[in-house]
C-alpha cells in the first residue's frame, strides 16, 4: 500500500527544488529519512545542505514513521530575528 504525503519546501530548499510543495507517494512504513532520500534524488540542486524536518507542523527526526496524508516540511536552518 502507498502513502499519500505532501512535502513542503521553504527558503533555500524551495529555491533548490523550484517548488513550494508537491505530493509524494511512498510505501507504507516510510520514514522522514525516506522522504529526504527521495527529494535529494529528485532535486540534485538540494546538494548535501543540511535540512531540518517537520511533520504536521512539529519538528520530527529521520526515524519518524509516516502515516497517510502526513505533511512533511523541509527547510535549511532557521534564521529569524
Amino acid at each position, binding site marked *: 500500500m502507498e502513502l499519500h504525503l505532501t512535502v513542503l519546501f521553504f*527558503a*533555500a530548499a524551495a529555491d533548490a527544488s523550484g517548488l513550494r510543495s508537491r505530493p509524494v507517494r511512498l510505501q507504507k512504513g516510510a520514514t522522514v529519512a525516506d522522504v529526504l532520500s527521495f527529494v535529494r534524488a529528485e532535486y540534485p540542486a538540494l546538494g548535501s545542505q543540511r535540512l531540518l524536518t517537520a511533520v504536521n507542523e512539529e519538528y520530527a527526526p529521520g526515524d519518524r514513521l509516516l502515516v497517510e496524508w502526513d505533511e512533511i*516540511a523541509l527547510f535549511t536552518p532557521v534564521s529569524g530575528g
Partner: protein
Amino acid sequence: MRFEKIARLETTSGFCGLTTESLDVGLIARSFIPEECGATVTLDGYVRRFTRGRETLHLVYESYESMALKEMGKLIDEAAEHFDISKIVIIHRLGRLEIGETSVVISVSAPHRRAAFEACEWLITTLKQRVPIFKKEVYSDGEEWSPGETA
C-alpha cells in the same frame, strides 16, 4: 500598524504574531500593562546594514507560518514557566524589509525587571534556533539565505 493584519496565536501568557505590516514597537510594548508588574523589557530587532564587512541592501523574510506561530506560542509558554514574568508578546515581520526597519519585537512584562531581561534574552536566542522563519540577505554583490544561529 493594523492589528487586524497580524496572524495571531494567543496563549495563557500572551500572544505571538506574524505580519507583513511595519511594526509599531511602542504600541506592541504596551499590549499588556498588568497591575502586578513594574517593568516591560522590549527588544526591537531591526535590519543591520553591515554584516561581517558585507553591505546589505535589504532583507526578505519568509516563514512556515502555521508552524512558526505554534513554535512562538511554545516559547511563550516555556518562558512563562521558567521565569518570574507575567506577559509576553512576540511579533515577527515578514516580506521585504529595508535597513533600520524592525524585524522582530519581543516584550516581556514582569513584577521586577531582572526576570524580564533574562526572559527576553532567552526568547530571542531560542527564537533564532527554533522558529521556522528564514532571512534572505540581499547584498550589494549577491544574495543568500542566512545560515542562522543553530543550537
